[in-house]
């Protein structure tokens, strides 16, 4: 029986004829109606399981849930009306920003837009920043190729962009001794794709990580694994793009795309209608919406949420290295099962978990998810406790049913490039995706005109000085130049007023308390901004010449105070 007849039978079995599909132009489209969101997702995953290289579009309706509508920016103006950039990049996450930066290597005009009021507001600031070695991906997957290539690129690109990147390696612990016998075989397999690994005995592992739980029988070390701060990386890409002439427009959302004869003619936003030569779709969980509007709908995104826990730096003593346990991986969900990551800033990140959701912008955390994650990872490092936790966050990954990246030219629309379905290992892959997608976009323009390389492109970004990590001599010199670098505002993370002021005046400046936090870490520590929050607010108010009740925490309208005391509220 062919895959498709199997699928047909399986769908009838599970959904009693309520779900059907048809295949056309290489796309398998599901339709029908189901009761629960999970049923809708299961049907899509089933279709991916039984297909023969077809793209999956899931048009099933769900009675009790639908994908939540995109939250729109409040601004309505004509700022961008009539603009004709060579390339319009939609979405300023890590991929969109990497694409924009790579595009600046060519003689093209680039407009990068995002509906939020800062870059890296969705998945790019809501993940663990792992630079994966690329071992747990299937051969032939797009994401494996990009993972391996991106990993190799990291040292150079992080150095150029002035972002902390540490190739600290990763230990994967195994609770099952029998698996040891299989290791030499997989080791060779990994070596073939360029991923070195090393066997670590139980006693050696305990020496490396004295607090390790008793379950671990052996481990594998992957020296090419690394860590980076994903939003720092995104901000750095965005700044380097802007420094090289790209234009960034925030609070700019696409509301419609006009296309004709396989070509995008115009893109309608809340800030005017644009006429780009090429459109690059890096819209994360909204990639499918863009694809639909552009008449190029050949994949579906099923959002998957996950929560990570951040511990105090003091707890970092409890886990000296990055580890994950094979035993804790839940095979039923598409996730690496999480682990314990040591961040570039020496906090520990624990998690994430994984749940299917129709709520694309719901970043709530729940008590259950946090306590379950702690319990699960506590098996690996038993000394971790809830009192080590300083905060937690939720991210929503933009998964396709094929569980692979979609990095390709439009199927029906020829001036469109997709970088969609980017979930883990998106951070790892971003440098490679940026390179390729930029080339793809440039090649489309080359059909019309000659595109030269941009000779004045400068790949180097000078980062904001990090006083807590500077040598005393260097810091002393900096303070003598600008005394604000000697005034510590955030005590937990030792962040100076100079750094905060710098964050407010970069080429992609912070415009909120959280924006400052993501750039210079003020408020990231154990008091979570209890001390420095109001002071950062005051610095922003003074710097932007606005009253304190117009300073926002993160999103527009998230005012930190309501009025002057005794004033008119």
């Amino acid at each position, binding site marked *: 029986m062919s895959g498709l007849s199997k699928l047909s039978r399986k769908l009838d079995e599970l959904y009693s004829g309520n779900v059907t599909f048809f295949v056309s132009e290489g796309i398998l489209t599901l339709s029908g109606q189901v009761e629960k969101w999970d049923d809708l997702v299961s049907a899509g995953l089933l279709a991916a399981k039984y297909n023969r290289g077809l793209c999956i579009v899931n048009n099933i309706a769900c009675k009790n849930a639908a994908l939540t509508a995109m939250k729109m920016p409040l601004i309505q103006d004509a700022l961008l009306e009539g603009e004709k950039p060579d390339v319009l990049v939609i979405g300023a996450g890590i991929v969109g920003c990497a694409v924009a930066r790579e595009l600046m290597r060519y003689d093209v005009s680039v407009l990068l837009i995002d509906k939020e009021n800062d870059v890296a507001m969705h998945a790019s600031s809501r993940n663990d920043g792992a630079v994966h070695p690329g071992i747990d991906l299937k051969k032939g997957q797009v994401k494996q190729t990009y993972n391996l290539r991106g990993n190799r690129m990291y040292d150079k690109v992080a150095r150029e962009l002035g972002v902390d990147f540490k190739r600290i390696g990763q230990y994967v612990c195994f609770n099952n001794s029998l698996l040891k016998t299989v290791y030499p075989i997989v080791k060779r397999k990994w070596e073939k794709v360029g991923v070195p690994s090393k066997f670590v005995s139980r006693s050696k592992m305990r020496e490396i990580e004295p607090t390790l739980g008793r379950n671990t029988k052996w481990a594998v070390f992957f020296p090419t694994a690394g860590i980076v701060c994903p939003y720092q990386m995104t901000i750095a890409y965005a700044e380097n793009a802007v420094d090289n002439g790209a234009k960034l427009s925030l609070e700019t959302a696409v509301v419609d795309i006009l296309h004709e004869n396989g070509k995008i003619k115009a893109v309608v936003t809340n800030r005017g209608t644009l006429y780009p030569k090429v459109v690059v779709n890096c819209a994360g969980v909204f990639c499918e919406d863009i694809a639909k509007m552009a008449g190029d709908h050949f994949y579906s995104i099923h959002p998957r949420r996950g929560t990570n826990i951040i511990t105090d730096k003091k707890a970092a003593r409890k886990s000296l290295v990055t580890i994950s346990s094979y035993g804790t991986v839940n095979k039923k969900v598409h996730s690496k099962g999480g682990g314990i990551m040591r961040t570039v800033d020496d906090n520990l990140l624990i998690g994430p978990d994984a749940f299917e959701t129709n709520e694309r912008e719901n970043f*709530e955390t729940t*008590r259950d998810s946090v306590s379950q994650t702690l319990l699960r990872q506590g098996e690996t490092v038993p000394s971790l406790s809830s009192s080590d936790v300083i905060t937690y966050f939720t991210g929503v990954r933009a998964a396709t049913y094929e569980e692979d990246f979609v990095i390709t030219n439009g199927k029906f629309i020829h001036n469109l490039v997709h970088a969609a379905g980017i979930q883990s290992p998106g951070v790892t892959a971003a440098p490679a995706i940026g390179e390729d997608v930029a080339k793809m976009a440039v090649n489309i323009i080359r059909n019309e005109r000659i595109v030269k390389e941009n000779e004045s492109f400068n790949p180097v970004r000078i980062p904001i000085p990090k006083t807590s990590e500077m040598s005393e001599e260097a810091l002393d010199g900096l303070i003598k130049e600008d005394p604000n670098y000697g005034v*510590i505002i955030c005590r937990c993370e030792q962040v100076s007023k100079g750094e905060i002021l710098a964050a407010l005046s970069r080429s992609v400046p912070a415009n909120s308390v959280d924006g400052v936090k993501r750039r210079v870490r003020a408020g990231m520590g154990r*008091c979570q901004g209890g001390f420095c*929050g109001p002071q950062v607010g*005051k610095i922003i108010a003074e710097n932007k010449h606005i009253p304190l009740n117009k300073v926002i925490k993160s999103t527009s*309208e998230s005012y930190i105070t309501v*009025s002057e005391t005794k004033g008119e509220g």
Partner: protein
Amino acid sequence: MQIKNFDVLVIGGGPAGLAAAISAEKNNASVLLLEREERLGGILKQCIHDGFGVVRFGKKMAGCEYAQVFINELRQTPVVAEVLSFVTKIEKTSEGGFYVTYSSKDGIQKVTANAIVLSTGCRERTAKQVQIHGTRPSGVLTAGAAQYYTNILGYLPGKNCVILGSGDIGLIMARRLTLEGATVLGVYEAKSTPSGLRRNISQCLDDFDIPLYCSKTVTRAFGSSRLTGVEVCSVDEQMNPIEETKEYIPCDTLILSVGLIPENEIAEGLGVEIDKRTKGPITDNHQMTSVNGVFVCGNAWQVSDLADYVSLSGERAGKYAAFYGGKKEATVCVDYEGSFLYMVPQKVTIDTVCEPTAFYFRSNKEMDKSKFTLKIDQKEVYTKIYSSLRPPEMQKIEIDFSKYSITPSTKIAFTLSEVIK
């Protein structure tokens, strides 16, 4: 460059540090006081309510007024007080002193000191540490931050406020925000009894008809930009929320007064031993920690209910830091048994003949008539009867050990128990 040397370096210019610096100077020490903020006074700068100074000055003063007395006194002394100065590194010198690096507007500074007094205060527990979930909107802040916005910056943090935790700052802020025209919908306390002082419950809540709900906690925040509401649940005896009791309360502000944690990052860096119960360093009655020459006082030592007590521990720390001659005095550990939440100091020096030792304790529950006993070598030598005890109210008791012969092998034990009627 000539590195300046001081007998005593005081870190933190709040009420504890001010008292320590003045007292060290009185005892003939050269003193440097470092404060990371722009002005001296610590958290008292923003405490414009009264109730300070009753024990020490016999009158009610505002917090900033109380601090100013010490600031004025300090200015009469040769103590060097530097503001906007942040200690970044402390190393021990081979001579038994300390080599200290700090940053200021003038650059990286270095000094040496014979002894160090840590008066770094405490920080507030945060929303995440009390398991508040949901979204992360603006309008969720600690009581101290709310107080800073209101009293220092002159901005109202919110209009319709829910307060979680009946700690003193939370109660003070309930009144303060009401006076500024905000509505305080209620104070919620997860414990079955309030955490703040009785006088604050009466003066800050009762007088303003602000309801107090015990055994209830906030579990979830709503709103994607500004807070739009909170979910409140009753809790069971293990303090776990009971799902069926949840209710939604619309509000734009959630203020947290859910406990204070002594700030001891510098102490921990120096290897100072921390008491799990107080979360502050273990000390002897001279306020010296387990590390020679490192003294601690104020809320960095133990979270006090009254600033007056903070000043007392500061004075002691300053004095003994000035006396510190590089050697550790012999100490005896003190045992605490029964219904103590904690008691400090945890050690007593052998030669405490010169002055009575002040002990501070809190009971671990609300107690009626209770008996406090001191046993020396298992012999009951002192008892005191309390008509009632509550955990929020710290008790001070002075013991004159000169009456007893204390040797390194003496067993000193305190017990606290309710008197059964």
